[in-house]
C-alpha cells in the first residue's frame, strides 16, 4: 500500500516537483527577461558580516534595492555562511565567503559599505574595524551591549568621516515618518502628548539548536568569544553577548519614544526577572517607567516586554495626547488614530491626506473579495437613524494613517543608508542618535538589577 517517489525534497531541488508536472518553465508565458537598469557607476559594493537570521532579513531587503552588489559574506558558522552564499548566487552575486572579518576587510578592497548583523557584543569591534578600513557601516541595533562599546563606534565614525547607520528601522518606515512629521509635528493632532504606553508580547519560544554535524568546535567558539554552541545559538539570552528582550525588542520601540518626542528621558525605574525560562540569564519579562521632559511638559511612559505570552495585543507604541492618540506598530493591524471628543474635527486633515477614515486595522470589517460583492445579504429591520442607544461612554472615533509600507520592512532604512552614501542624504539613525537610545536601554537593565529608580543627566546621552 506504500507509495514512493524517487527523490526526497531538498532546498536545492524542490523545484523538481514542478518539473515533474511536465510543464516547461522556460517556455511558459509567465516568464519574461528584463534588462539591467542600474548603471555601473551607481553600484555599491557591500559585504555582510553575520549571516544568521537578521543578516538574512537584511540581505533579502537589500537584494530588492537596485545597484547593490554583495562582494563578501562573513560568519564564523559555516552553516549560515554557506546559506547566505547560496542565496546570493541565486540572485547573480558572487560573494567571497570568509570566517574572519579581518581577513575579509584586508582582501576585499573594493567595498563601499559593510552591513553588520552579528551579536551585540561584537558590534563595536566589527563596526570600528570596518570604519577604520574606510567603509561605511550599517550596524544592527542594539549598537552595543555596553555604553563604552557604543561610544567607540560614534568616535570611530567621527574620526574616519564615514557613515554609521544603526538599524532602528522604524525611523525610515514611511508610516512612522508620516506619523511624526505630518500627524504629530505639522497637524498637532495629538495635542499635548501626556503619556506613552508600549509593549511587545511574544509567545514562549524554544531555544535554538543546530543540525547534527554542524556544530562549531569549542576552541573556535572560544576564539571568537563564545563559551559553547548553546550560547552561540542563543546569545540573545546571555549577558556577556547581549542585553536581553529589552534590548532585542524594546530597543526598537523605546527608540521611537525618543525619536518622536525629540528628547531623551530624565529617569527610569524598571522591574524584571528570569521568571520562566530555566536556561536563560536575561529577564524574560520586564516592565519600565520613564519620564520625558518635553517642551510642553512631562510625558510619563511605560513599556513592557513579555516573552512568555502573546496575549494582550501584540506589539505597538501608543502615544496619548489631550486631543488625540496614535497607536502605531510595524504591523498595520495594530495601528490606529483616535480623536478625543474635545478636539477639532479632522475633516481638513482627511482632505489633506494626513489621516483617513477607518478602513483597516483593529475593528475594521473584513475585506470583501471580488466574488463576494454580488448578492450581499441585506439585513432586515427598520433603519436606526432616529434612535439613540443609551449605554456606556462611546468609544473614541478611530482613524487610519493613509500610508502603506510598500517594501520589505528593513528596505527603507537600508535605502536611506545607501542614499546617504550616493547622494549625501541625511541618515535617519546615525550613531549619535542611536547612542542615546542605547544609553536608555542599558539603563533599564541597570535599574532592574539595582532595584531602584535611576536618573539620566543630559550629558549621559552624548557620546
Amino acid at each position: 500500500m506504500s507509495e514512493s517517489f524517487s527523490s526526497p525534497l531538498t532546498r536545492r531541488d524542490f523545484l523538481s516537483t514542478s518539473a515533474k508536472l511536465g510543464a516547461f518553465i522556460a517556455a511558459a508565458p509567465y516568464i519574461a527577461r528584463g534588462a539591467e537598469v542600474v548603471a555601473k557607476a551607481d553600484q555599491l559594493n557591500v559585504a555582510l558580516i553575520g549571516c544568521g537570521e537578521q543578516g538574512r532579513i537584511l540581505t533579502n531587503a537589500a537584494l530588492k534595492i537596485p545597484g547593490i552588489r554583495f562582494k563578501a559574506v562573513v560568519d564564523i558558522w559555516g552553516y549560515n555562511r554557506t546559506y547566505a552564499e547560496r542565496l546570493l548566487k541565486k540572485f547573480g552575486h558572487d560573494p567571497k565567503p570568509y570566517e574572519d572579518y579581518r581577513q575579509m576587510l584586508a582582501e576585499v578592497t573594493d567595498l563601499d559599505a559593510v552591513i553588520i548583523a552579528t551579536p551585540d557584543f561584537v558590534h563595536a569591534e566589527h563596526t570600528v574595524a570596518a570604519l577604520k578600513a574606510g567603509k561605511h557601516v550599517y550596524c544592527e541595533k542594539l549598537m552595543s551591549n555596553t555604553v563604552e562599546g557604543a561610544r567607540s563606534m560614534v568616535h570611530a565614525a567621527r574620526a574616519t568621516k564615514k557613515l554609521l547607520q544603526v538599524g532602528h528601522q522604524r525611523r525610515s518606515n514611511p508610516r512612522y515618518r508620516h506619523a511624526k512629521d505630518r500627524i504629530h509635528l505639522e497637524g498637532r493632532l495629538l495635542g499635548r502628548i501626556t503619556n506613552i504606553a508600549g509593549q511587545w508580547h511574544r509567545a514562549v519560544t524554544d531555544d535554538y539548536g543546530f543540525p547534527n554535524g554542524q556544530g562549531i568546535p569549542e576552541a573556535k567558539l572560544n576564539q571568537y568569544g563564545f563559551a559553547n554552541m548553546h550560547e552561540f545559538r542563543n546569545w540573545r539570552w546571555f549577558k556577556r553577548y547581549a542585553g536581553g528582550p529589552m534590548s532585542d525588542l524594546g530597543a526598537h520601540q523605546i527608540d521611537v519614544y525618543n525619536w518622536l518626542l525629540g528628547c531623551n528621558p530624565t529617569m527610569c525605574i524598571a522591574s524584571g526577572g528570569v521568571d520562566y525560562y530555566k536556561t536563560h540569564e536575561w529577564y524574560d519579562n520586564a516592565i519600565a517607567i520613564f519620564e520625558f521632559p518635553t517642551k510642553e511638559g512631562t510625558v510619563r511612559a511605560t513599556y513592557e516586554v513579555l516573552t512568555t505570552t502573546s496575549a494582550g495585543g501584540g506589539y505597538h507604541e501608543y502615544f496619548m495626547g489631550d486631543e488625540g492618540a496614535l497607536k502605531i506598530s510595524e504591523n498595520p493591524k495594530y495601528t490606529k488614530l483616535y480623536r478625543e471628543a474635545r478636539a477639532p474635527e479632522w475633516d481638513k486633515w482627511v482632505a489633506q491626506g494626513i489621516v483617513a477614515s477607518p478602513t483597516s486595522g483593529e475593528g475594521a470589517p473584513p475585506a470583501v473579495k471580488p466574488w463576494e460583492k454580488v448578492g450581499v445579504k441585506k439585513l432586515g429591520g427598520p433603519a436606526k437613524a432616529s434612535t439613540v442607544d443609551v449605554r456606556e461612554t462611546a468609544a473614541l472615533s478611530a482613524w487610519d494613517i493613509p500610508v502603506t509600507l510598500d517594501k520589505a520592512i528593513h528596505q527603507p532604512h537600508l535605502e536611506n543608508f545607501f542614499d546617504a552614501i550616493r547622494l549625501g542624504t541625511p541618515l535617519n539613525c546615525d550613531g549619535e542618535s542611536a547612542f542615546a537610545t542605547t544609553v536608555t536601554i542599558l539603563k533599564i537593565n541597570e535599574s532592574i538589577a539595582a532595584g531602584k529608580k535611576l536618573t539620566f543627566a543630559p550629558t549621559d546621552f552624548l557620546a
Partner: protein
Amino acid sequence: MKFPEFPEFHHEAMATTFALVIADQSPDYARQAATACFRELDRLESELSRYVESSDIARANRLAFGETIGIGEDALHCLLLAADASLATDRAFDAAYASERAPAQPADTPLFTLDPAAHTLTSHTAQLHLDLGAIGKGYALDRLAAVLADWAITHACLHGGGSSVLALDAPAGQTGWPIGLGEGQHQRVLSLTRCALSGSGLAVQGEHLVDPRAQTSAQRRDRTWALAPGAGLSDALSTAFFIFNDAEVAAFCTAHPHVGAALAHADGKLVAHGALAALLA
C-alpha cells in the same frame, strides 16, 4: 495528526495550524528542528501572505499596469510553481483568478510575468490580485521538509492546516505514514511515503472555491484529493480537481501518471484516478 509514539509539534501560521511529527530522533533534537522549521514558516508567511502589508504578494497586488518589482526567492519559486500548475490545469488552478482583466485582454495571456534571473515580477493588469491560499501552505510544507533535510531528519510527516499532508520517509520498521482519505464508512487509510496528499472541499470555509475559468462558484459539492510528489503541487492540484469535471480529472491523471486523484461522490463513495487508483483499489 495523532501519532502518540512520536513527538508532535504545532505552530499557527497562514491562518491555520501546522503540525510536524518527527520519528526516530531524540525528543530534544526533534524539538530543536521543529523550532527551526517554524521560524522558517513565519518567514515564509511574511513573504507570501497577501494579508502581510510588506510581503512580496501584497506588494505585487498594489502594482499598476506595467510596473515591475523585485521579489524574493520564495515568492519567485512559489509563483513559478503556481504558473506551472495553472498552465497544466488550463487555469482550473489560477493564483491570479481574482484579478481584474481588461475587456480587451485575451483570456489566455498571463496577468503577470516573472523574470527568474532578475527576481522580478511585472503586472499586466490594472489590478493584479494574487492569492496563494491554494498553494502556499503546501509550498511551505515542501520548504519545511527542506529544513528537516538540513537537520538530517527524513522520517517525518508534515501537516498544513488539515488540507495538506507531506509524508517523508516512514518511521523505522513501518511501511508508511497512515493518512486518512474519505469520510465515514468510506474512509480509507493510506500508507504514504515521499509524497503529498491534499484535499479540497467546502466543509471548512464554505463556498470559497471559485472556478477561475467561469468566475463563478465551483459546481462540485463533494471533496477532492490530489496525490503528488510535493505538497505545493498537491495543494494546487486538489483545488484544480475540485474545479475540473470528472472527465477532466481522469484525463489529467492519465497525462500525468505520477499524480493521483480521488473524488468523493454524494453517497460518500470514492472514485480514484492515476497514482491513487492503485492505492485505493
